């Protein structure tokens, strides 16, 4: 039953990315947390999702650009983390994140394939432009996208379990080292998003004001 729920959620995440309804369930911060909740490890899923989100802040889905599909990868990594019974350390978290960063490239490729398939789907039923034909084509394309999302999420979960089971015992990193790599990568990739907001020269005052607010929060916490 849990596998069915996991697959259905993967389908929803895949569908939300482009087809319907683009409510951002497909963002890693959301997908990772919900996927973790489905398999009983919401905290770890949320952390995987949050870290992936920081890695993707600067990636914009402009026009027909091809970009990694981080939502299904976050869900797959959260499932894999839980199903591999990974030790709850920064090392396992780092391994799950590394897997997600590779898997999202493959799932991004599957989005491209889906768009090619849609070219044929919208040409189905010949040149018929009855209202029913248009609706059937559209719903068929969406159903295929849902199936694609479920398939790549579950395949990713399987591959991720293998990756974690093999690598977790032999990956001889200290937890402090692994945590350091994650934090450094997250800080660097998140900071890169300043360009998205107009660049350093245009936004440095607001950025510094935010930095002071963040430091103040840490001091008074």
């Amino acid at each position: 039953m849990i596998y069915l729920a996991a697959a259905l959620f993967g389908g929803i995440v895949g569908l939300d990315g482009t087809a319907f309804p683009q409510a951002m369930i497909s963002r890693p911060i959301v997908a990772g947390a919900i996927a973790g909740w489905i398999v009983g490890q919401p905290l770890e899923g949320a952390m995987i999702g949050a870290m992936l989100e920081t890695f993707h802040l600067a990636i914009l889905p402009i026009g027909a650009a091809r970009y990694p599909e981080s939502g299904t990868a976050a869900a797959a990594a959260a499932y894999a983390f839980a199903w591999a019974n990974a030790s709850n350390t920064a090392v396992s978290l780092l391994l799950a994140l590394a897997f997600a960063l590779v898997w999202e490239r493959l799932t991004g490729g599957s989005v491209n394939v889906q768009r090619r398939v849609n070219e044929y789907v919208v040409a189905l039923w010949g040149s018929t432009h009855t209202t029913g034909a248009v609706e059937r084509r559209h719903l068929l394309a969406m159903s295929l996208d849902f199936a694609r999302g479920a398939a790549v999420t579950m395949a990713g979960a399987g591959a991720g379990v293998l990756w974690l089971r093999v690598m977790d015992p032999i990956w001889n990193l200290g937890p402090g080292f692994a945590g350091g790599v994650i934090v450094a990568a997250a800080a660097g990739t998140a900071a890169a998003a300043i360009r998205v907001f107009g660049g350093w020269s245009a936004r440095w005052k607001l950025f510094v004001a935010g930095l002071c607010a963040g430091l103040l929060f840490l001091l008074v916490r």
Partner: protein
Amino acid sequence: MMKTSIRLVMFLRSFAIQGSWNYRTLIGNGFAFAILPALREIYRDRSELEGGVARHTELFNSHPYLVGVALGAVSELEAQHADPRTIERFKSAVRSSLGSIGDSLVWAAWRPACALLGLTVVFAGAPWWAGPLVYLVAYNAGTLALRIWSFRIGFRHAQGVGAVLRRAHLDRVQHAAAGAGAFLLGVVLPLVLANGTGMPVSWPWIGAAIVAAVLGLRFGTAARTPILAAGAVVLILGLLFGLRP
């Protein structure tokens, strides 16, 4: 004037406007899917209806949250039985501007700003569900308002919608959202350093993270791939030599 029930169905269908996105017609089929309820109401004759549907399955593109502008305006033009060439010219005229306005407003400002808001909540140590929930609520409140507004102005102003879009000063909204994003980026960075993994991180790594952040701030998106590649190299070195500081 289109019935409210038809507008509502069109509005709901517009959430699936990209359902059959493809490289040949982009959202052409999705546009036809969303405008169908209006066409069914306008064209009672089957051949006229099919002609209308065929016209709207052709290549079209728009930002998904602003497509209501085109859907509303085109529905009104169809209801007025405007010349199909006029409708086609109108669709061509709004296509690129709806895309670029939406890209800069939503993808490059609103979405990353809301994501940073959610990340702030996560890294501030809130319960696991709070960050994603804050993100979903904030993001969808803004985009739902944008979807509703775009539908309204499309139906109300039809061909004159271009002037309304210019007067709306969406660039100011984009500027404010981007400013909020820059502020939140400043808030998030120290929180990531302090509580990124929920586990203690040593000072040398905090130093490395600060250097990475400075590189990110200086070089922007060009720094992203090298930073992740450096992380991958460290991972491989860790496997080969068992780094354990």
